[in-house]
């Protein structure tokens, strides 16, 4: 398969791009932020996402979805990134759907129609410390009656205070550091003993710290098999990381596009600043990094869609590369804007904040480079 978008994928990109520009440009984020919203996204927009089919991209046609793949998911997520659109699509429509596809028909029957209709959101309760490290999961899930009792703490659960369901990684066996012994659970909103403490992040999104104080769940809350949650968790994380890569690419590209426009408009010393070679070279270098990051992202998405054994490494590469590149784009962006880059009025600073959050989500560049190194035996 050639490493560029097919005609159908380009059509989807055009429609997603038109949709975001009209319904959810950066002004939408500003409005939400300045209205002191407590949800983190606009539920009416989420409904419209569903009507566009975005929420059911990965859901199979048999199960009422579009039956498309990670490339298509990435096409939409890139537009979300470019417009800084606050949306639960990545956690709900991409990562959660990928996990549930590996984890029991009853979950899919329960959640897919609601996700496809834009009536439900799902949040991911994986991280327990400030840095991502899913194998470090320590939260306990003890057998209790015909189900389990969950005890522990999660953080960086984006949208977790509002989600209809949480996918929670907990330990039924093994010790922190082992991938065996982790089990994934679907925990519904309002479960007794679960307390969410929402925190607004730098980019105006909301992530919760969640306390599980002996939360009781049934056996059929398990996604996949007991002690073998690493399988669906890997599916979740691969989808989430590939999707976050696409969104980061959009954030980086959006910042770069704004910066290029500014270089062609701002005058100093009687000339357009884009004539200065010092800035041209930095802009051209940034362009090269973005192109390389784009290739890495598309490669990962295509390999995931093909079910290739190489997808795993390609996803690590994509997430590391887009994390580095988007952060370069926003840093160069602010610098090349000069003083106005520091103002809230200009959008480039919003891109900087979003890039930082997404780069951290599902592991930063160091995490993924380290994984690649370990898997390559050094």
């Amino acid at each position, binding site marked *: 398969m050639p490493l560029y978008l097919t005609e159908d994928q380009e059509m989807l990109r055009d429609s997603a791009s038109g949709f975001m520009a009209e319904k959810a440009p950066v002004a939408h984020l500003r409005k939400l932020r300045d209205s002191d919203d407590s949800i983190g996204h606009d539920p009416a927009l989420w409904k419209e996402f569903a009507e566009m089919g975005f929420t059911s991209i990965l859901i199979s046609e048999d199960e009422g979805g579009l039956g498309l793949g990670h490339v298509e998911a990435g096409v939409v997520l890139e537009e979300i990134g470019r417009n800084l659109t606050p949306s639960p699509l990545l956690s709900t429509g991409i990562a959660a759907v990928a996990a549930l596809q590996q984890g029991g028909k009853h979950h899919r029957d329960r959640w897919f129609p609601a996700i496809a209709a834009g009536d439900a959101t799902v949040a991911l309760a994986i991280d327990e410390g400030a840095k991502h490290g899913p194998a470090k999961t320590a939260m306990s899930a003890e057998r209790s009656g015909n189900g389990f009792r969950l005890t522990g703490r999660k953080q960086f659960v984006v949208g977790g205070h509002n989600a209809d369901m949480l996918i929670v990684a907990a330990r039924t066996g093994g010790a922190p550091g082992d991938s065996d012994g982790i089990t994934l659970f679907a925990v519904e909103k309002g479960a007794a003993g679960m307390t969410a403490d929402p925190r607004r992040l730098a980019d105006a999104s909301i992530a919760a710290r969640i306390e599980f104080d002996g939360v009781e769940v049934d056996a059929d809350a398990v996604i996949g098999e007991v002690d073998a949650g690493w399988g669906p968790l890997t599916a979740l994380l691969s989808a989430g990381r590939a999707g976050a890569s696409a969104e980061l690419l959009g954030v980086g590209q959006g910042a770069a596009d704004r910066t290029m426009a500014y270089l062609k408009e701002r005058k100093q010393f009687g000339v357009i600043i*884009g004539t200065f070679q010092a800035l041209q070279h930095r*802009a051209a270098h940034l362009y090269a990094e973005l192109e390389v990051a784009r290739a*890495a992202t598309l490669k990962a998405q295509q390999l995931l869609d093909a079910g290739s054994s190489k997808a795993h*490494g*390609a996803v690590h*590469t994509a997430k590391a590369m887009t994390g580095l590149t988007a952060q370069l784009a926003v840093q160069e962006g602010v610098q090349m804007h000069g003083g106005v880059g520091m103002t809230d009025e200009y959008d480039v600073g919003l891109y900087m904040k979003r890039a930082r959050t997404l780069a951290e989500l599902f592991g930063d*560049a160091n995490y993924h*480079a380290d994984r690649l190194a370990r898997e390559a035996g*050094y």
Partner: protein
Amino acid sequence: MPAADADLDSFRADTRAWLEENCPPEMRTPMKGDADQCWGGRNFTFQSDAQKLWLERMAAKGWTVPDWPTEYGGGGLSREETKILRQEMARLGARLPLSSFGIWMLGPALLKYGTEAQKQEHLPPIARGEIRWCQGYSEPGAGSDLAGLQTRAVDAGDHYVINGQKVWTSYADKADWIFCLVRTNPDAPKHQGISFILFDMDQPGVEPKPIRLISGSSPFCETFFTDARAEKRNLVHEENKGWDVAKYLLGHEREMISGMGHDGAGKTLPQMAVEAVGADAEGRLADPLMRADIALFEVRAAAYRAQGERFNDEWKAGRLNPAQASMMKYYGTELNKRRNELVMAAGGSDALEWESDDSDGGKKARDWLRSKGNSIEGGTSEIQLNIVAKRILELPS
């Protein structure tokens, strides 16, 4: 399975069998240095019978230039078949049978701009490794500003008389022929008075003088022309339109240079580093700062491989802005320099040895120094960035 895929599968099977049978065992080991490369040409001394045999067998199949048309000595393979051939050669560790500026640079330019007679005359000897070519572009006063070149070609009826000096002419002392940029109209604006001409180096008016590099070898020369003679039939494209050819060829050169250092033969950088530095109890490279440097380098290298694939696919589909070759050249060469810095850092004082057998004659150190030229030759990194800024980002000048 679609018919086309079935055909490709059988092509792969045939190719694999043919290579197994015909590639001499000595030609299946990684090349140790420049000396192991086969450059062909009138004066080339083969290093071994195996090297000669390998060239002859591959040339007979047209596989020194697999994607050229068969009538010019090529293999007539499609892009997919060419890719399969390369994969199968890599699988076997087979060496490149022939390294040649004729193949990488002049050939593509002749295929696009040459007359039928020029193609017939020059392409088959390139494919067979009989004529070795060099590139006469740069001059002392015309490097990055190539179009400022001064070497003069004066019309003398059926030929041109050439006077002037080229510099950095790689392998001019070993080449048989030169493809050369000359000024045919000194009064026209600088880009419009240049012609692209081919001539034999074996004549009294052509004198190459080797220049020694920091890597110790002397792969390139100053080349002086004193009333040298070039036949008019060897003018490629129209008189004073040589800049078109030059630019087209530079695109190929950039693509070629951007791919250097990624041949995949031999040990990987992490393997080399672990051997030199050792590993901790968990198997991680013992120097954590070096490990981080290498791990982040490897991310970029993997991403760039994907970009290489994307570039080829888009090129094939005619979707590329030609200036993207500049982006590839810039990124690929900077990456290769970085890789060589890391190889030196990992190798420590072992890698500093310049002549010993243990170091294969200072291969690491010499490769490291040679890599610095990658971001200079074929247009410097700064020039590539200028091109991207202007032609892709459309920044004003």
